[in-house]
C-alpha cells in the first residue's frame, strides 16, 4: 500500500465514523431518558409551549424521519437554534460567539507545552542518567499526573494571592488584568493595527484588550490545559533522543568526525521528532475534553463552558450539536496527523497498520 493509498483509505474510513458519531449525538438528544422538550421548558412547562417546540424540533415525525432530519442538518452545518442559552438565536451564531476564546486557549495550550516539554525532554535525553535527567523526568511524570481541575484551582489561588505569598503581584504585572476572567479578544478584529497602531494592538489594554493582556489572561489556563501534553512530550522526547543517539547511523556520523553540534542538531533532533507527531492527536483530544473543566474554573466563556451550560440548563439540541462538532474536529485532526506522519516518515503505510 503506498502512502497515498493509505491516506485515501483513512479519509474514506472517516465517513462511517462521522455517521456513527452523529448517531451517538442523535441518540443522546432524542432517544435518551430525558425528553428534550421537557428539558428545554423546565419550570415553564405548558402543553401548548411543548407542542410548539415539538413542532419546531420536528419531533412529530416518525423516528427515522427525525434521524434523517438531524443528520442532514448536521452534515450541512445547519445547526438549528439555541433554545435556552440564547433563545431564538441560531445555534451557529451562539457557538461562533463562544469559539474565539477556546481557540485562543487551545492555541497557547498546544504551543506552550511544545516549547517547554520538547526541549526539556531532549535535554533529559542528551544528559541521560544524570541528576538533572532524573529531576526533569520525575517532574514531568508528577506534572502529568496532577488532575487538571485541581491544578487550575491551586494555580488560580496562588496567582490571586501572589502578593502576600511571594511579594509579586501577578494581577498588576506588565498589564493590569483580572485573574479569573475571560480574555478580551476584541483587538483581533482589526489585525491591521498590529502594524499601524502597534501600541494599542500589542500592549495598551484599552476597551478592546491587547495581545499581551489577552496572553497574560490565558496563560495560567493554557499552562494547566497543556500540563498533560507537556509531560507526554517530555517523556517521549527523552526516549526518542535516547533511541536515536544509540542508533547505528549516529555511530557512523561520529566515526566520520562530525562535531557533536552537527550530530545533535542535524541527525538526532530531526529523527527524534517523528514519534512526537502522534502526540498531537492525544493532545487535541485532551484539549477539547479538558476545556470543559478548565474553562469553568478560570471563568473563560468558551465552547467547553457553553457545553456545560447547555447541559445544566437543559438545552439538549445545542449540547448534541456541540458533541457532533467536536467529533468532526477530532476526526479532522486525526487525518491531519496521518497526513503529517506520511510526510515526515515515508515508511508509514508500508508496514501492517
Amino acid at each position: 500500500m503506498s502512502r497515498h493509498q493509505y491516506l485515501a483509505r483513512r479519509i474514506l474510513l472517516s465517513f462511517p465514523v462521522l455517521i456513527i458519531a452523529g448517531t451517538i449525538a442523535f441518540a443522546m438528544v432524542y432517544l435518551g431518558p430525558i425528553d428534550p422538550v421537557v428539558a428545554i421548558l423546565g419550570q415553564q412547562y405548558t402543553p401548548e409551549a411543548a407542542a410548539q417546540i415539538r413542532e419546531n424540533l420536528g419531533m412529530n415525525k416518525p423516528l427515522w424521519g427525525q434521524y434523517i432530519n438531524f443528520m442532514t442538518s448536521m452534515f450541512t452545518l445547519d445547526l438549528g437554534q439555541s433554545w435556552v442559552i440564547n433563545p431564538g438565536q441560531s445555534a451557529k451564531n451562539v457557538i461562533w460567539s463562544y469559539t474565539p476564546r477556546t481557540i485562543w486557549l487551545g492555541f497557547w495550550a498546544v504551543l506552550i507545552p511544545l516549547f517547554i516539554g520538547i526541549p526539556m525532554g531532549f535535554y533529559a535525553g542528551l544528559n541521560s542518567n544524570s541528576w538533572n535527567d532524573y529531576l526533569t523526568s520525575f517532574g514531568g511524570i508528577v506534572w502529568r499526573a496532577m488532575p487538571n481541575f485541581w491544578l487550575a484551582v491551586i494555580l488560580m489561588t496562588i496567582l490571586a494571592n501572589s502578593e502576600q505569598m511571594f511579594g509579586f503581584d501577578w494581577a498588576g504585572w506588565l498589564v493590569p488584568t483580572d485573574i479569573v476572567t475571560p480574555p478580551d479578544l476584541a483587538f483581533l478584529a482589526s489585525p491591521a493595527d498590529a502594524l499601524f497602531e502597534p501600541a494599542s494592538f500589542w500592549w495598551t489594554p484599552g476597551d478592546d484588550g491587547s495581545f499581551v493582556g489577552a496572553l497574560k489572561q490565558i496563560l495560567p489556563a493554557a499552562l494547566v490545559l497543556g500540563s498533560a501534553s507537556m509531560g507526554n512530550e517530555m517523556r517521549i522526547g527523552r526516549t526518542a533522543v535516547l533511541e536515536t543517539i544509540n542508533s547505528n547511523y549516529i555511530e557512523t556520523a561520529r566515526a566520520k568526525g562530525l562535531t557533536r553540534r552537527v550530530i545533535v542538531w542535524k541527525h538526532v533532533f530531526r529523527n527524534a521528532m517523528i514519534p512526537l507527531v502522534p502526540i498531537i492527536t492525544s493532545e487535541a483530544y485532551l484539549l477539547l475534553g479538558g476545556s470543559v473543566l478548565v474553562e469553568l474554573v478560570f471563568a473563560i466563556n468558551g465552547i467547553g463552558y457553553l457545553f456545560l451550560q447547555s447541559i445544566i440548563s437543559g438545552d439538549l439540541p445545542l449540547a448534541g450539536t456541540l458533541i457532533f462538532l467536536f467529533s468532526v474536529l477530532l476526526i479532522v485532526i486525526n487525518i491531519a496527523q496521518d497526513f503529517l506522519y506520511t510526510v515526515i516518515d515515508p515508511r508509514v503505510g508500508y508496514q501492517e497498520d
Partner: protein
Amino acid sequence: MGVSHASSTKSHSETEDDRRLRERIRENPGPALRWAAGMFLLFIAEAGALFQTIGRLLVAVTENLPGTPGVETANWLAWKAQTVPTLLSRETIPNQGHWNGSEWVGTFAGLEPAQAWGLRLALIYLYGCLFVLALWYGYLTYRSAYRTMDWTPRDDQLRRLRHNNWGMFGLTVVILFLIMAAFAPAMSPTTIDQNIQEPYSYEISYWNDDLGQVSTILVGDANFQSVSKGNPSQNVGIMQSDDFGRFHPFGTMNNGKDLFTIIAFGSRISLFIGVTAISIAGTIATLLALATAYFKGLADLTVVLVSDSIQSVPSLMLLIAAGYLFSDTWVATLYDGAVLLALLFALIYWPGMWRAIRGPSFQVAQEEWVDAARSYGQRPLRLMRTHMLPYIMGYLLVYASMSFAGVIISTAGLSFIGFGINAPTPSWGRAINAGQPFVAQASWHISLIPGILITILCVGFNALGDGIRDAIDPESDTDPGEGEGGAAGGGA
C-alpha cells in the same frame, strides 16, 4: 518469539496441571499446610469484618433487585455477622473517647485518641502488608513445591518487575491504596454513619472546660462547632483535635465532617468504579482483540470503525451528557451513581484498550503454532484461549493500570462539577470543590490533600504500568501515545 511460545505451552499444560495439583499436594502436603495455616490465622483475625462486608453487600444487592427476594435473610445474616469478633476494628482498639478531667475514658488502654488511632492505622497497614506477603509466599510455595516446570517465562517477568524500582514503587502505592479502600471502615477515626450521614442521630460525650465536667452533645452540633472555614480561629487542620476531643488526621471539612473518613470511603468508591469499569472494558477489549486478530478482514474493520467513533467523542463531554440524561433513572441511584459511572467508563475505555492489544494480538495470530493448532482442528475459542490469550494478557495489564489512573482523575473531575457521585456518598472531587475558597487560607488541607493523594495514586498506577511493560517486553520501544490518552483521564 521464543518467550510467547513457551508461555503458551505453559498455560496449555497448566490446565492439565490443575487436575493433578490436588494429587501433588496430597503427596507432599507440608508446604501447602504451612501456608494454609498462616492464611487461616490471617482470616480468623479479620473474619468479622469479612462477614460484615459480605452481609452488607447481600443486603444492598437484594434491596435493589426487583421484588427484593431474600432481603430478610440477608438482613439477618448481616446482623449475625456483627457478633463475629474482629481483631482490627474500632471495637477492639477504640479511638473515640472523652477526657473526664483526669484520664481518657473509652479509648484503647487510656491512650489519647490520636495515639489510639495511630496504633490502629499502623496495625491495619501491618496486617495488609502481611496479607500481601502471604499471597506472594503462597505463589512461591506453589512454584517451588507443586509446579511441574522448573522455569516459565512468567518467572523471568516477575523477576524483572521485582528488580524494577520504579515499578515496585508503583506497586507499593497501589497496594497502600487498596488497603485503605478495603479497611476504610476500620481505618477512619469515626464511622461514616455517625460523622457523615446521620450526624444528628448520634451523641458523644466530651470534657466541657467551662463547666469542668463531662457533657454530651449531638455529633451534628459538634461538627458545626469544628468547621474549617479558612480563618485560623475556625480551623481544624492536619493532625489536630477539635474542642470535643475528636482527633482529625486530615483536619475537618468546611462543614465540620472528618476529612480522613471522607478520603477513606472515597477511595473505596474510586476503587469500585475503577475495578468495575476496567474489568468490563478489559473483557470486551480482549474478546474483540482475539476475535479480530483471528478472523481479520471485515471483523477487524467493523471494530475499527466502532472504536474510532467512540473515541471521536470527547470522553468528558460524553460523561457529562450521559450523567445528566440518566440522572433520573434507576441506574443512577445504584451506589449513588457509581454503577452508572463505571458502566460509562467501560464504554469509553474499551476502544483504547483494544487498540493497545490489537498489535500484539495480530502478531501472535501470525505465529506458526497458531497455524499448527488450527490445522490440528482445534476450535477457534479454545485456540484463542490457550495459545493467544496468555501472550496479550501482559499488554492488557499495562494499559489497564494506566487507564485506572484516568478513571480516578475523571471520576474526581466529574464529582468536582457535580456530575459524578452524588452526596451523601463521599468522593474526592467533591472535597476538592468544597475547599476551593480556602486554598490560600488556614483551611488549605480540604482541597490540597485529596488532590495530592490523587496525584500520588496516578503516579503509582503509571509507574506500575511502566514496570509491567518493562517486565513483559524489556526491549520494547515505548509505543508513543499508547496509553497516554487513557492515563490523563480525557483531560479532567
